[in-house]
């Protein structure tokens, strides 16, 4: 079966399988020899107290500082592997030579029954899968003597990093081949066996994005009614976001509760710009003292590079909003999706370079965006990632090294451009209405109305009947809240269904437009070519959906089947795949 390999060829972060069994093993296998292959499972050592620091940077040998000595060391009984080393298991005996680079004089405890019992999932297109992705995995080890019971008692195995690799007897470990890096989820014991369940690194993103809360004790801690509320956070170019009143009686407001921001472009009251009175202060104490003794009249003044502002006049009808550049992420101010998401993944989470493949972040378009979290709800980092990545048809994936990598569906190769969007034609953008909450985002909604059909329904590509059932089209792209739709498209495709929503965060209209064009190009292809299903577990994971943020019955159904056909317009001249193309694809 052939088909147009949408996306797969350019999905970043997928490793080339030709490197899967490297060097020596490949040679041996090619020569028809049957080496004694040993599978290893290594639990990376780490400080036992490391609960917050999810994973230590695994050095070459996996060695990390020793844990507390008072904790019983169960590893003496399996060859003296202590808490200062990694814990090495294998399905056969193995000893590291003295001149072994990584694991000298270590003994692999031969307890592994089933390593490599990894469920792998194919990415996106079944027609061009270069390597399946590891998503869920488990390993089974001998536990007749209750070893893992003692291990679980004395060690926090959860979130410990584990590596599977493969090698030969008597080989040095620098000849071993990495199979996959994973993270231990839990350990199940059933007497004679212990089953280690793993999770992929991107699950580490399921953690709160906001960690700073108001204490409610005045000053920077905020008024009492703010107690335990998250401090607001701003990233990138945020427009017209509502500022959080910190000390309401002094008219002190805040837009970003964690460090410096790039600056305020404008501050408004009910969208009327306020004037800066020229003052800014370096400490909150001075700043607050000024609020008491010499409040701004009538505009505002600021607290240095941080985001507190004092508004001179506020009344009961006031709505203080601001256009601002949010958190200073790296030194140079970079408000792109790419930079912000990279900061969230690699910076905010504390995940080291070994867990994040930052090179793959380059697939995210370099547009400028803004996010403002006002603190009224909690978000996980994954929530934010979904919001950031979905408009670009990007998602977080995990490569075999266990690193978080970014993948993206790309435009179908070789396809002629479909309708070209422009601002006058079908969509527009603007700030959300002021009475709504604080996110400075713009919603992009587009309609899809493809109709799913069985192969038997497709009779003849030339048949005029087909034309009656042609619904592969974007209907409209509109902004939420306005009810703005494109009458021209509606006219052309009157049977359009209610549209799914996709939220995007953009500073510029043309970035938004190119994202919409991209979505249009990709998803206007027949779904069987897109073929999201296959057993790509995270892709069909109901919790996340694929791509994140898109929720549409057609897509969801299509993902669960190996092949879904959609009737398309054979008479269309604007680049739609014809039925002839479909049959060619099936041949």
């Amino acid at each position, binding site marked *: 079966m052939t088909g147009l390999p949408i996306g797969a060829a350019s999905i970043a972060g997928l490793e080339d399988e030709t490197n899967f069994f490297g060097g020596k093993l490949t040679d041996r296998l090619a020569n028809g020899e*049957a080496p004694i292959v040993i599978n290893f499972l290594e639990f990376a050592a780490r400080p036992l107290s490391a609960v917050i620091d999810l994973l230590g940077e695994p050095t070459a040998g996996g060695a990390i500082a020793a844990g507390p000595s008072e904790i019983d060391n169960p590893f003496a009984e399996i*060859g*003296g592997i*202590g808490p200062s080393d990694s814990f090495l298991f294998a399905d056969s*005996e193995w*000893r590291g030579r003295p001149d072994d680079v990584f694991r000298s*004089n270590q*003994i692999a405890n*031969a307890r592994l029954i089933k390593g490599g019992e990894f469920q792998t999932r194919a990415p996106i297109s079944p027609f061009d899968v270069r390597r399946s992705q590891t998503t869920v995995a488990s390993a089974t080890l001998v536990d007749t003597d209750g070893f893992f019971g003692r291990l679980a008692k004395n060690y926090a195995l959860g979130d410990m990093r584990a590596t599977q690799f493969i090698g030969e*007897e008597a080989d040095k470990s620098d000849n071993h081949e990495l199979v996959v890096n994973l993270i231990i989820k839990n350990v199940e014991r059933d007497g004679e066996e212990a089953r280690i369940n793993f999770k992929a690194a991107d699950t580490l993103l399921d953690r709160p994005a906001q960690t700073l809360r108001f204490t409610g004790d005045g000053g920077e801690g905020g008024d009492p009614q703010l107690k335990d509320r998250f401090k607001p956070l701003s990233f990138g170019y945020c427009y017209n976001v509502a500022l959080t009143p910190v000390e309401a009686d002094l008219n002190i407001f805040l837009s970003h509760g964690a460090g410096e921001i790039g600056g305020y472009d404008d501050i408004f009251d009910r969208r009327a710009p306020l004037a800066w009175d020229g003052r800014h202060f370096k400490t909150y104490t001075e700043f607050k003292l000024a609020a008491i003794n010499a409040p701004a009249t009538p505009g505002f003044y600021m607290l240095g590079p941080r985001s507190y502002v004092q508004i001179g006049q506020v009344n009961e009808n006031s709505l203080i909003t601001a256009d601002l550049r949010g958190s200073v992420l790296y030194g140079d101010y970079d408000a792109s999706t790419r930079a912000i998401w990279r900061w969230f993944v690699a910076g905010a989470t504390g995940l080291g370079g070994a867990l994040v493949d930052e090179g793959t972040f380059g697939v995210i378009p370099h547009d400028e965006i803004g996010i403002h979290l006002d603190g009224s709800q909690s978000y996980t980092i994954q929530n934010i990632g979904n919001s950031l990545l979905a408009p670009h048809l990007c998602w977080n994936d995990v490569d075999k090294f266990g690193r978080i990598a970014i993948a993206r569906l790309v435009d179908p190769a070789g396809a002629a451009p479909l309708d070209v969007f422009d601002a006058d034609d079908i969509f527009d953008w603007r700030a959300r209405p002021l009475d709504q909450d604080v996110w400075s985002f713009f919603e992009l909604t587009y309609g899809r109305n493809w109709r799913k059909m069985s192969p038997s329904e497709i009779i003849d590509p030339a048949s005029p009947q087909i034309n009656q059932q042609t619904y592969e089209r974007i209907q409209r792209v509109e902004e939420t809240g306005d009810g703005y739709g494109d009458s021209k498209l509606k006219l052309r495709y009157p049977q359009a269904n209610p549209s799914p929503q996709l939220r995007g965060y953009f500073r510029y209209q043309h970035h938004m437009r190119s994202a919409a064009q991209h979505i249009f190009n990709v998803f206007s292809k027949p779904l069987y070519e897109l073929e999201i299903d296959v057993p790509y577990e995270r892709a069909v994971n109901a919790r996340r959906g694929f791509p994140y943020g898109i929720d549409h019955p057609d897509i969801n159904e299509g993902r669960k089947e190996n092949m879904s056909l959609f009737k398309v317009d054979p008479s269309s001249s604007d680049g739609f795949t014809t039925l002839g193309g479909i049959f060619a694809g099936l041949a």
Partner: protein
Amino acid sequence: MSFVLADNWVDRATIIAHNEVGKMRAENLKTDTVGNCWRANNLSISGNTVTLDIQASEPEPTQVLFLQRPRYSRRKEKEPGIETFSATDTIEHQLYSEHDATNLLWGSGEQLSGIVKGLGVTGVYLPERVPNVRLWRIIFRAYSRSIAPNDFIEFGRAVAGDPFKFTTAYAAPLRRGGRSNSTSRRPKAGVSVHRRRAPQYRIWAPLFKSIDTDEYESVEDFLLDVGDLTQFLIGLEEDQPHRTWMLGAIKDEDLERYSYSWSRLPMTIPETI
């Protein structure tokens, strides 16, 4: 004549290694798992002679001395540098009545280890039982391991003690089986074979066809001692330690007593390495 040795006094002894590497301690000689071994390193610097002292806590009667090093596959051990103690390296055993190596009771002199590639076993059956051993000194001279990076030796198990001998010969010879967890597959419509090799281990299956009452009782005592998967040493020929001695544990036994003087005892003893 075959013997078994279940009471290994090394497990109760204090082991003093003059050369050991970090966690590959000489104490590992007490663990059943041979792969969990003692390693002496840097022989190119310290000289290729390594001494190991095993001090018995009480005077121990001793007639069998046994050592096993970790085993790679035989094919692998034919590659240079893999075999951590070879047939041409020598071992000298000394038995003393005192911990401080005074009063030598018996000494073997420097002897070739005779270790067979792929088995890794060596041992000595003393001509006479030495009653009061307090120190077993082993002097390894690893001539084949004197050049870095292969200047290390390994041993995984040491056994010493007083063997138990059955009073009559077995009615049937011991059968030896080779086993491994290797697997092979053919494609359904093909003839090529694809193998996944795994290390071999041996299985001894002795069969007592006829034993008398005394023997029955002594065999039963032995089974009660070791029948719960306890590792013991079995030697088929006293004078051929390198090929006919092994460590094993009884997996299945089926002692049947049919009449006063006619019993049979089939059992399976897989090698534990």
